[in-house]
């Protein structure tokens, strides 16, 4: 068992807080990952914080803004298509 206080300002917790996004994203190396897991196994405030961070990231991933853009106007669509065809023609003649 570690000796830290499970306090939100505990230095051991602060060190873990700093790494939680990388932990959530699977970007920590094996050693750091083990360190984080060893700490949170024994620290309810860190678990709680981790859960709330995960929910926040889940909400971001599903985010849909209220503003919608309208459909591409036919005239623009035609310009886009011509631009694409011209770009491919350039490539084939390059």
């Amino acid at each position: 068992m570690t000796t830290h206080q499970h306090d939100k300002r505990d230095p051991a917790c602060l060190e873990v807080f700093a790494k939680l996004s990388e932990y959530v994203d699977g970007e920590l190396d094996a050693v750091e990952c083990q360190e984080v897991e060893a700490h949170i196994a024994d620290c309810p405030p860190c678990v709680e914080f981790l859960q709330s961070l995960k929910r926040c990231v889940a909400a971001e991933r599903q985010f849909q803004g209220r503003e919608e853009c309208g459909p591409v106007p036919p005239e623009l669509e035609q310009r886009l298509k011509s631009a694409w065809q011209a770009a491919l023609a350039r490539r084939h003649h390059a």
Partner: protein
Amino acid sequence: MTTVSRIAPEVEWARRLLAGDESAFTPFVESFQHRIFQYTWLMCGQREDAEEVAQDTLLKIFESFDQLEDPERVKAWVFRIAKNYCLMKRRKSVFAPDRELSLDELLPGQEGDRPIQVADTSELPEGRVLRQELSEELERAMRALPDTYRSVVLLRDVEDLSTADTAEVLDLTEDTVKQRLHRGRLALRKSLAAYVEKAQ
């Protein structure tokens, strides 16, 4: 966690467009049009600007389609173009001035943390009204982020670009992307405390 074993549809459409397949044109446009607009709207702050920038971006994409070297990374290529147009257009005054978010102000147990309403599950709030509320609050919170953080959060979390691709789009190092992503998320978490924290 998402795994990247399957080819993303936009990668497939980009390949087909490079090969001259016209049937990929409409799905490609439809897939990106909305995402580009969402990005430009959250980066530019004004609807007219966002629409103009989104259209300029689409046009630039097709005009320079021959320069798409790696269809696997089409999303990063598209958002790099969008970012550049946003920078040209941006009216800085729309947003709070850029400032550094310190870890200290973002950690829990600080004053300003809100009371908590939602019961503990690892899921997001259920129900349409609550989800709607969460989504509106998230939009507000994203707008309130300094734009150095907002741009990273939008690309990494909303658009699901990798750390490496985000770094390339924004001309940052991967370490800076990770640091800004973490602080941006912590700031959002704090704003969304009522929705994402456990009931106590």
